[in-house]
């Protein structure tokens, strides 16, 4: 709408200009002609832009013929309105057509580039949206990691134990408090920094298993074995911990008699081999439900590509063994 209003005033200016430079005809005639020609060209261009696909090759090709046709239609309209029919056969016709084409062309090119500009702007915006979404996913993943690390069920049950032990066995209570303290500290440190060593991760897991040992009593036994040089290797967080949590939550806890969790880390060839073995209930049904293993594997793929493997199998003597192999 505004476009056509702008066009109309532009056309009036052209008419005025033509009269001033001595094109011939009265001011009224020139303005009417200019309006008719200008608006016809604009209308036809609009039609072309609507019909030919955006970004296609047809569009720029159709612009000039549309402007020429618009000029012709405008002249016929103008001659009908101003009743100057002779105009059409005189030399004025060609000159008018030429002027119409000139201004129509300028308008069309302007129109075309404005549209290209809009397209580019839309593309930039789409890219920005994608970038922001990726960023959001990153933050969400980090948040999820933090939540996964300190599960509320774990925390509240541990606090309940603490509350009970303070009365009945203050010595054990202080051991539990100390282990919880170590666990929380290590968790926070591990989530904040991507760096850190296998030793850091094993310290965290030692605190975690110690807490469960106090909670479950004789139902849990655990061991962690890793030589000092292996402990010094860099190791990303949230790869080993979910495997140990699964061993406890899905292996030992649901089993009446409890069981044993053994973590072992060793360097073999160019790889760091880690195993988490439990003597618990085995792989459940449906398998893998809620184990957080998708997360572990996604992290492995992101960090090491094809160079890392995770294998989870039921052990022939019962329980589950998870084997993680990383380049080291």
């Amino acid at each position: 709408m505004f476009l056509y209003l702008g066009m109309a005033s532009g056309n009036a200016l052209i008419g005025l200009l033509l009269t001033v430079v001595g094109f011939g005809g009265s001011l009224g005639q020139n303005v009417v002609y200019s309006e008719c020609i200008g608006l016809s060209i604009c209308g036809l261009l609009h039609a072309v832009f609507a019909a030919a696909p955006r970004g296609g090759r047809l569009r720029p090709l159709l612009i000039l013929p549309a402007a020429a046709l618009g000029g012709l239609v405008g002249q016929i309209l103008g001659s009908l309105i101003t009743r100057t029919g002779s105009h059409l056969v005189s030399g004025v016709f060609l000159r008018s057509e030429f002027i119409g084409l000139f201004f129509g062309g300028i308008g069309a090119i302007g129109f075309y580039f404005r549209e290209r500009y809009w397209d580019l702007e839309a593309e930039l915006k789409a890219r920005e949206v994608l970038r922001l979404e990726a960023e959001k996913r990153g933050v969400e993943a980090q948040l999820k990691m933090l939540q996964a690390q300190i599960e509320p069920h774990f925390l509240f049950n541990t606090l309940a134990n603490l509350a009970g032990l303070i009365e009945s066995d203050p010595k054990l209570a202080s051991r539990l408090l100390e282990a919880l303290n170590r666990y929380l500290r290590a968790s926070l440190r591990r989530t904040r920094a991507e760096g850190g060593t296998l030793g850091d991760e094993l310290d965290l897991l030692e605190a975690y298993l110690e807490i469960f040992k106090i909670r479950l009593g004789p139902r849990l036994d655990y061991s962690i074995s890793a030589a000092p040089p292996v402990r010094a290797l860099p190791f990303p967080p949230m790869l080993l911990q979910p495997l140990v949590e699964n061993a406890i939550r899905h292996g030992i806890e649901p089993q009446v008699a409890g069981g044993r969790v053994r973590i072992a880390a060793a360097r073999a060839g160019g790889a760091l081999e880690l195993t988490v073995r439990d003597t618990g209930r085995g792989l459940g049904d449906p398998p893998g439900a809620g184990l957080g293993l998708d997360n572990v594997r996604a992290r492995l793929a992101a960090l090491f590509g094809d160079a890392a493997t995770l294998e989870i199998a039921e052990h022939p003597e019962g329980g589950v063994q998870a084997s993680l192999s990383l380049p080291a």
Partner: protein
Amino acid sequence: MSTALLADDEPNLVTHLAQRLARLWPELEVLATAGNGLEALERIQTLRPDVAFLDIRMPGLSGLEVAARLTVPCRLVFVTAYDQFAVEAFEREAVDYLLKPVTDERLARTVERLRTSQAAQLPEPLLARLRDLISATPAAPGPLRWIKAQAGQVVRLVGVDEVCYFQASDKYTTVVTRDSELLIRTPIKDLIDQLDPAQFWQIHRSTLVNVRQIAAARHDAMGRLTLQLKHRPESLPVSRNFAHLFRQM
């Protein structure tokens, strides 16, 4: 004189609950404690306490499963650390419950209620509802992500992303990964329903292929369509019925 049974798989919590009950409700006699659901059920059935405090997450049977199997009258109080769904359900259905860590004030309120009201058993439909609520995983099951498959003597857990393709053989389905072949009992036609249809395409009566593992589709000299895989040397024939999947866009 009222009697009680306390069940929790964490021994410290049983001891602590017993101590606090002794203070808050001196005339309550704790007949027995239990460390798992099976034990709890058996002791309630034989000892017939007036009240049972049942932890929800217990090995053997969950607290709710114990409740559902009881055939003797017993007033029940469920104890849980953090089960959002359970707590919402308990609130809504006005079932007695305690949240760990249990505060003295909350325990005193529960004791008060137990002392003043009649022994009652949970009605069966309510139990069923609670059980559904608590056993149900919050999210819908969704497509299969992991498969338990036999590799020689060992049962392995294989992520579906690792699978290159599934191939039906006599009684079994072979699960083919980059470097191994495993067996499962689920037939191809059942797998189709369980797997994500955007990730696994049936290309033959006996073959389901992981779309992400396809390297190329080729026509051989006879005009038959075969698939080359990214990480496997063999190529897979595509039967005529499924060739439309690979027609050029």
